[in-house]
């Protein structure tokens, strides 16, 4: 069996509420994601889905536990090392796409690889053309439709040839028809690029389209890896 792309063990995270009390937001006993695998994670609002992705991306440090991404144990890394590791191995698609408004579509995608393997305009151009945006390369995000912005965000997440793509409610802003289309495109391109996909969502239709579905709320229980699978 090959090494997993992502592995979490006994990971917990709590935030301190204004009244000083610790409020647990994440409790994962065990979770694995294999190379090339695509998983949908679901959970109620406030169940810690975004925090889960931030922990995996190394943007938030867990209070306890072990997070291994593409063979790298994040706990043993400095913040700068985590930044480099993320830039090289992890792509991120945000719910609201989070494109940089001052940059063109092409520049947004180039920035997706600028902090990792380095800028490669030809690859950025190829990805945008693959996603049907070959004629919108120089357009700023505000000149693009929501669907087009979503595709730019997908291209940016895949630009650095990551092993793992994290998608946080990537279809949350789209109508059902466009959401299905966009999700299909995301899964297709991840497949083509050989990237694993971990998508968190509360969109039932999106979740149902995945073979493997995980309930985040159940991952904290004993034998969670098995029990969390829906």
């Amino acid at each position, binding site marked *: 069996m090959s090494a997993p792309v992502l592995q979490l063990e006994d990971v917990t995270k709590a935030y301190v509420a204004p009244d000083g009390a610790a409020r647990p937001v994440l409790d994962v006993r065990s979770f694995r994601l294999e190379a090339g695998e695509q998983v949908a994670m679901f959970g109620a609002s406030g169940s810690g889905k975004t925090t889960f992705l931030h922990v995996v991306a190394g*943007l938030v440090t867990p209070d306890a536990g072990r997070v291994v991404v593409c063979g790298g144990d994040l706990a043993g890394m400095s913040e700068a090392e985590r*930044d*480099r590791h993320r830039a090289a191995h992890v792509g991120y698609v*945000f719910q609201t796409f989070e494109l*940089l408004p001052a940059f063109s579509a092409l520049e947004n995608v180039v920035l997706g690889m600028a902090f990792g393997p380095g*800028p490669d305009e030809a690859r950025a151009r190829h990805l945008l053309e693959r996603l049907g945006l070959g004629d919108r390369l120089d357009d700023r995000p505000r000149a693009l439709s929501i669907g087009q912005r979503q595709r730019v965000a997908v291209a940016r997440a895949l630009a650095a040839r990551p092993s793992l793509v994290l998608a946080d409610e990537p279809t949350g802003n789209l109508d059902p028809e466009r959401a299905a289309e966009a999700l299909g495109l995301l899964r297709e391109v991840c497949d083509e690029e050989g990237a694993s996909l971990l998508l968190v969502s509360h969109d039932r239709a999106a979740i149902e389209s995945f073979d493997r579905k995980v309930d985040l709320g159940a991952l904290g229980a004993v034998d969670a890896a098995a029990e969390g699978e829906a």
Partner: protein
Amino acid sequence: MSALSPSTLALLVRRSLGSHALSTAVTVASAALASGLVIAVFALSAQSRRAFAGGEEGFDAVLGAKGSELQLVLNAVFHLETSPGNVPWALYERLAESPGVARAIPYAVGDSYHGFRVVGTTEERFVDLALAPGGRPFDVHHREAVIGATVARETGLAVGRTFQPTHGLEESDGHEHDEEYVVVGVLAPSGGPVDRVVFIPIEGVFRLGGHVLRGAGEEFHAHHGEEIPDEHKEVSAVLVDFDGPQAGFEWKRRLADEGHDATLAFPIGRSIAELFDKLGFVNRVLELVAWLVMVVAAASILASITNTMNERRREFAILRALGARRSTLLTAILLEATAIAAAGAALGLLVHVGLHFAVAGLVEARTGVVLELALHPAMLFTPAAMVALGATAGLVPGLLAYRTEVGETLA
């Protein structure tokens, strides 16, 4: 894995500056004005000192009435201020004939033409002055004049044209003399005070209607056709060229020992240098103000970038999520501030050129002295200081960017 490429940093800086184009332009303009002001204060001060303290055409000293050496020099050399009084013709002759004196040129002043000073002198004044083609020095036996290049340009006088001097130095105050002079020569432009002078024979000044000579202690009016006895003649000043400095010091001592009512401003450059030294504190104040303006410009860079921090916090968080390190954001902001300061510093050189020509124009109009646009160390250290201040100003917003927490911002 490659290091962050310069092109990526350049892209981040360019897009950031472009998306706040108006505040960027205003901040660059304020840095340019501040930078240009500092350069102008230093360079113009040095250039003015050089131009004025250099004296005129190698004259070493000015002999004149007892009083301020500075007033004497300003009046006789730069044709500013009023004459402090007269000295007897005999003193001039004694000076001119004494050993160690290479040249002594008498001046008689007090009249003007269209605001330009009329100076009575001898033909010897033109030994070192170049005349424009078609002109010649005046003949002391005729009512002839040689005029400076600026006088010719601004009054329209030319060789062959005639004019009547005005009594007094202000055109509006004095009356026109009846005597008519014909221009026989125009001086080639010199960039010095003589460009603004009308020279006529000194005898002519003595004989202008209404002029009173008091060389002998009593009033004497010259009459047409009658010779003026030397004891009645007096001069406003004598420009002196000594063979060596020793003669100058000897004459200075002699005037004091013999109790003459006369002053020898020697050396000329020292009197002007003393003026600049006296004005030194004004210069220091100007320099201080200029530096403060520069600090304010740096503060405006700080404020303009810091003002964008709130709206850009999300942008920083996204960049961090894409793998940008905290130090990358800090570097980008520092470069942004540095770029604004550098653009301002570069434009500051142009601002300095503009200020130089404006001030030099005023000085030339008032004194005839031309301030050359010359290289000055301030043209190097001021842009360097502006860039350093700008980069320092970028530290505050840079640290704000550095502290961006992705988890909190993108939650």
